[in-house]
Structures are given as structure tokens and as C-alpha cells.
């Protein structure tokens, strides 16, 4: 709670959390508040510009864009919101254990982690999606697995920072089991790093999810989805720019909101996030 208060004290944190809350609210409530059926096709209404009946206009099939934009984040948010905690949990626990264990096991497994990270994300994800399909039941475990691998590195580094300190030696001398040491001594100390990592993973997963949809490997039409809507409307941008604008704004505000919140969280717990590379 103290962390939340410190996040809200920064303008960027307040804006970020506000945007995220707004999007979550829209994702939950949208089936009840959307004015039209998102998939019903009306040839007479093709490319209607924003106006009275359709506030944000209609798309190439005469579907209401406001409705589709409100609903278009549901699958992305659901999948990533489930996959993110799983990835941070398994990657975090694996990293803590490796940082604590050290030795040969650590050497060998870190090589495997490096090897997985050396492969491009699209290659790894597409191999699985092309074979098993892009359903929610495939995307959640796939995202949770691949986005957990880099968490191992973060958790391991954070653990190595505390493992040599006296209170770990004391816990060992008291005869505490390894599980107890991980749970009571290490986890509280690396939790801040994991929380910041989790916020970043969430935004990266959303990026990956909507990129997959945009490329045609994610959500299947006619389900409304931002990535898919942007891909569809690109060909008509010269005549109906509003069709691309709404999903672009929705996706951007959510991802920016998460990043503002993650930044504020990092500052609130005293972590430096200055070094980051394109993903």
C-alpha cells in the first residue's frame, strides 16, 4: 500500500495507473455497454465517418468501431494478465534457486537460458502456434514459458546480490531448509525486482500478442482485436483513417499506461531502470 501511494504521488504513476484501470474496467464492462453487435455486417453502412449513430464511424464491413474497439482488448488483456504472473512466478523461483545453488547446475542451466534467449521470439512462438493453433489455451502457456526465461536471469542476479549477506548465513546456521530460506529470506528481498519485471513483462507480452494478431497468427476474425483491426484497416487508411485510429489509440494508451506505471513502481521501490534495449 505504501508503494501504491508513492506511485500515485508521481504524475506519471497516477496517469499510468489511471490508464490501466480504465482499460481493465472497459475490458470487464464492455459486453454490457457496447451499443452494437461487434460482428454484424451491414453493407449499407460501409466506412461511415464518425457521427451521431456511430461515434467513431464504421469499418469496411459496416461494423461499429466504438463497439469493436471497446471489446478489442479483452482477449489480449485476458491472455497476458494470466500469463504474466505465471511467467514471473516460475522464472522467479527458478532464478532464485539457481542463484542460491550456484555450481555446476547453475552453469549448465544458464547456458540453456542463454541459448533460448539467443533465438528470435517470433521463431520460437510461431513454431508452436503454427503447429498447435493460436487458441487461448496455446497462447497462455507459450507466452508464460518464453517470457519467464529472461525472468530467471533477473531473479538470479538479484539473488546473488543478497545470498552472500549475513542473514542468509545465519538462516543456514540455524538449520533452515532450502525451501524456508527461499521463502522467508530470499523472496522478500527480490520481490521488488520481480514486481517491476512483471510489469514490464506484461507490456512486452501485450506487444507480442498484438503483433501476432497483426501478423495474422493470433486472434481469428471476426473476433474484434486491436492488432487485427489495425491490420485490416491499413489498406483503407486513405479513405477511412478513423478505422485505424481508434484501435491505435486504444492499444497505445494501454501499453503507455503500463510503462508509466512500471516506471513509477521502479522509482517507488528504488530500482534503476535506465538501461533497457529494444525488444
Amino acid at each position, binding site marked *: 500500500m505504501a508503494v501504491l501511494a508513492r506511485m500515485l504521488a508521481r504524475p506519471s504513476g497516477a496517469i499510468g495507473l489511471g490508464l490501466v484501470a480504465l482499460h481493465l474496467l472497459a475490458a470487464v464492462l464492455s459486453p454490457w455497454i457496447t451499443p452494437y453487435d461487434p460482428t454484424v455486417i451491414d453493407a449499407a453502412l460501409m466506412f461511415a465517418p464518425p457521427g451521431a449513430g456511430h461515434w467513431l464511424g464504421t469499418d469496411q464491413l459496416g461494423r461499429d468501431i466504438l463497439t469493436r474497439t471497446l471489446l478489442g482488448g479483452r482477449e489480449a488483456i485476458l491472455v497476458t494478465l494470466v500469463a504474466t504472473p505465471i511467467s514471473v512466478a516460475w522464472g522467479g523461483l527458478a532464478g532464485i534457486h539457481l542463484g542460491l545453488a550456484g555450481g555446476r547446475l547453475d552453469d549448465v542451466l544458464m547456458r540453456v537460458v542463454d541459448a533460448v534467449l539467443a533465438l528470435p521470439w517470433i521463431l520460437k512462438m510461431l513454431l508452436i502456434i503454427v503447429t498447435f493453433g493460436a487458441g487461448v489455451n496455446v497462447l497462455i502457456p507459450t507466452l508464460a514459458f518464453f517470457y519467464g526465461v529472461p525472468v530467471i536471469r533477473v531473479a538470479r542476479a538479484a539473488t546473488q546480490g543478497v545470498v552472500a549477506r549475513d542473514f542468509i548465513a545465519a538462516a543456514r546456521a540455524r538449520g533452515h531448509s532450502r525451501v524456508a530460506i527461499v521463502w522467508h529470506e530470499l523472496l522478500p528481498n527480490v520481490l521488488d525486482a520481480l514486481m517491476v519485471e512483471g510489469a514490464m513483462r506484461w507490456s512486452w507480452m501485450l506487444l507480442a500478442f498484438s503483433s501476432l494478431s497483426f*501478423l495474422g497468427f493470433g486472434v481469428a476474425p471476426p473476433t474484434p482485436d486491436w492488432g487485427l483491426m489495425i491490420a485490416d484497416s491499413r489498406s483503407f487508411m486513405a479513405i477511412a483513417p478513423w478505422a485505424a485510429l481508434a484501435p491505435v489509440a486504444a492499444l497505445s494508451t494501454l501499453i503507455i499506461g503500463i510503462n508509466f506505471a512500471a516506471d513509477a513502481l521502479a522509482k517507488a521501490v528504488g530500482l534503476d531502470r535506465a538501461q533497457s534495449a529494444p*525488444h
Partner: protein
Amino acid sequence: MLRLVINRLLLGAITVALASAIIFGAVEALPGDACVAVLQRDAVGQRLENCRRELGLDRPALTRYAHWAAGALRGDLGVSAGSGKPIATLLGERLRNTLLLAGCTLAVGIPLALLLGVLTGLRRDGLLDVVLSTGGILAMTVPEFVSATVLIFVFSIGLGWVPGIVLAAPGAPIGDFFPGIVLPVAVLTMVMTAHILRTVRSSIIEVMASDFVRMATLKGVRRARIVWRHALPSALLPAVNVIALTIAWLLGGVVVVEKVFNYPGLGRFMIDSITERDLPVVQALALLVASVYVTINLAADLLTLALDPRLRTHRGRG
């Protein structure tokens, strides 16, 4: 020092070998093989058997991996299951195009990022800093297909300054890629500049507050000289790793940007070969990209060691 370098080289080689083994294993474990994918409905009976014999798929997996790895070491990557052309040729064309795109982006982005990083670092919380920090978060986080869509809308459809699509074939002469390459370079430059700028900015702030800069100021050294000759070189050190990861990102196939602009580089090649289940090509691509990733990270590590002698006495990052 020499032992450390050899040690890192060996670890890098092991990582590449592991990555290729992982992809080979994954391709093995998935249902269906290259012959089923290429022959599709004809993949039954004698024709399937013939194809498998031709591609050597009737031998045990381990034998095939050893054979493939031995070939790859000699530079022989085999032939594409789809087109029957040598993979080395197909890969070479796409690699050249990816290098062109990455080279243009780095040539614009690195000087820009360093300049802006220094300026924002020196005038912390000034107008430029606030604008660029906010804009930086936008550029870093907004999906590339979103920024690409916006840029195409403004500069291609709206103003008509540059084409919104690249029409050159994979093997076309380099001249054919201009001016279509301008917008993809712009999209990638925005992303990379934002990341590098952030790192340079924070290290400039740190360095300008350090004792040796104060010392130089007290000695009466001109401010411009302090910034460019004293502060910037030490602020570059943390940027080396970020720049390395950026190069690896650019060479690892910037899939979405290539798809949006129809650019014939490694990223689109990756998507096409996976959807066509051209598995020999997938394996070759994985090997190439993993090698590039490992080599660039290795180079960055060694460069950091060379620039900062203090690190040589420790075991490094491990």
C-alpha cells in the same frame, strides 16, 4: 586477460550449439515434417517415402543432427525444402537486405541518440528533457506496427513525401531499396534512439556530478571540452551493452517492420519459412540469428573489459 577471452569465446560457441540443438529438437518433436508440409495432400505412400529418403528424413534424428551440424560448420546449410534452392544463397540475399536496413538505422540512430542523450543529461528537467523523455517512452513502448501505421498515414498518404512500401525483390540491387527504406529506418530509429538516449542521459547526469568533472571545472577547463572529451567517453560505457543489444535486435529480424513495409529481410523470411514448414530454412535461420546474437554480446563484453580495466580482475558477469 587472454584466458578470460578464450573462456568467453568457448561459452559463446556452446550457447550457439545449444540454440541450434534446441531448434532441431523442437522441430523433431512437433508433429509433421518437411515432406508432409511440402507434399501436403500427396504425402502418402511411395511419394512420401521417396521425399523422406531424398531429404534424409529416414535416418535417426541424432545422425541427421550430426550430419547437419557438420555441414553447417563447413558453410553448407543444405537446400530449401520448398524451392529446392541452396539455403546459403537465399539466406545471403536476405542477410544483405537486413544489414542494409540495420546499417542505415545505426548510422542515423547512434549519433542522434548520443547527441540527444548528452543534451538532455546536461539540462535535466529542462524543456527538451521533458519532451524527449515523454516522447521516448512513447517511441519505446508503442508497438512498431502502430508507429509505422501513423508514419505511413502522415508521410506517405497525407504528404506523399516517401513511399509507404518497399517493392524491391530480395536479390534486387541496393539502389532499388531507396527511397522505400526511409520509413522503415525512421520507425526503427525512433525505437533505438529512445533506448540509447535514456542510458546516455542517466550516465551523463551521473558523470557530470562526479569528482573528476568538478576537478576539471575547477582547473578552468572549458565546459564543451569537459562534456565531449571527459564526460562522454565514460558515459559511453553503460551504453555499449545497450547498443550491442540494439544491433542484435536489428539483425535478429525486425519481423513486424519488415512485414508492414514489405521489406525482404531476415524477419519476413522467418515468417514465410515457418508458415511453409520449410524446416531446413528455419534451422539455418535459427543458427544464423543465434550466432549473431552471441557474437555481438561477446563483442560488447570484450569491449567493456577493454574500456574498463577494473572489471578484468573480477570474474565479470559470470
